[in-house]
């Protein structure tokens, strides 16, 4: 049988085909921005359940009106000052006896919150409030909690809370995950996110 050398395939147009596919994928796909503020909604309540009684001083009231103005504890406030005000309230630790808070570093003002477990932030919106403002306020309040958790984690375990959570989610983390989970739970219990949202006012 005569051997014939097979002719070389012309690969010059391969680039064109690949470019075509590349452009197709470039146009049809988007790198999605899937990150955001996670929240948990309260379950539906039955009609005849009485709401628990919370002392006035343990409530931090944030009202956003229809013009996107902030009213914090009956005073007008800029968004940039909200985080510090929330931290001051949560970190106050004004309780005495069994309600005292031994890890708070706040002013200890008896007219502000007793301890972080009792402190509730109440957010009231108007129906006309813009969503962007609402997210900005939520962001600042969550930021306040995160900062306090970071502080406590740094003091107890020498690393920030976000670092601990990151380690916990990391598959390649070599440390003890069980222990880490307990530490994360402990810090969450120390600074529970008690963010209550009232039904928006219609006028």
């Amino acid at each position: 049988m005569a051997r014939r050398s097979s002719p070389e395939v012309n690969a010059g147009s391969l680039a064109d085909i690949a470019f075509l596919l590349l452009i197709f994928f470039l146009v049809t796909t988007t790198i999605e921005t899937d990150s955001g503020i996670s929240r948990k909604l309260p379950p539906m309540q039955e009609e005849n359940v009485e709401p628990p009684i919370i002392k006035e001083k343990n409530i931090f009231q944030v009202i956003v009106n229809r013009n996107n103005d902030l009213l914090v504890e009956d005073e007008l406030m800029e968004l940039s000052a909200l985080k510090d005000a929330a931290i001051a309230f949560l970190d106050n630790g004004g309780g005495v006896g069994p309600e005292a808070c031994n890890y708070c570093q706040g002013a200890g003002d008896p007219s502000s919150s007793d301890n972080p477990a009792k402190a509730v932030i109440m957010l009231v919106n108007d129906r006309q409030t813009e969503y962007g403002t609402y997210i900005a306020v939520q962001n600042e309040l969550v930021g306040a909690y995160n900062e306090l958790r970071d502080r406590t984690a740094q003091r107890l375990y020498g690393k920030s809370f976000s670092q601990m959570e990151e380690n916990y989610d990391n598959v390649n983390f070599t440390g003890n995950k069980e222990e880490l989970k307990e530490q994360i739970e402990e810090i969450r219990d120390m600074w529970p996110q008690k963010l209550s949202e009232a039904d928006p006012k219609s006028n």
Partner: protein
Amino acid sequence: MSKFTKKKSSELPAINTSSLPDIVFMLLFFFMVATVMRQNTLKIQNTLPYADQVEKLDKKDLVMYIYAGKPSQRYQQTMGTEARVQLNDNFAEVSEIQQFIYAERESKREELIPFLTTALKVDHETNMGLVSDIKLELRKAEALKINYTTRQGDAAQNMQ
């Protein structure tokens, strides 16, 4: 003498392009792996607000998406300019959300249902009234884990 004078060709040598397909394929694979196909065609304006205290939403199959915002330019003739809810590919009423959640749950495996999260992709100009209505419906449907999807950035930009 002519032994030493090099013959200078007047033409430029052709550039070898045989590795061009390899480079392009590499780019192609990168984009194929790194990007996700858009699930829904948006019929609304959807400029998300900024936030910096964000958590990532991995596990895309465990996320249900609810969009809200003003109808885009081409739908404003028929739908008006009032903010609307979009589920899957169509405009929907707020009252249809419960049904949507149940249908989504039905399509997932049973053991995954407790981990389902609802991502709210709401335009930053929407009024809170609509968002509260959506949240009330989600509470009724017992879809309590939600995530306000945002862009990464300074939250103060939302106020401008």
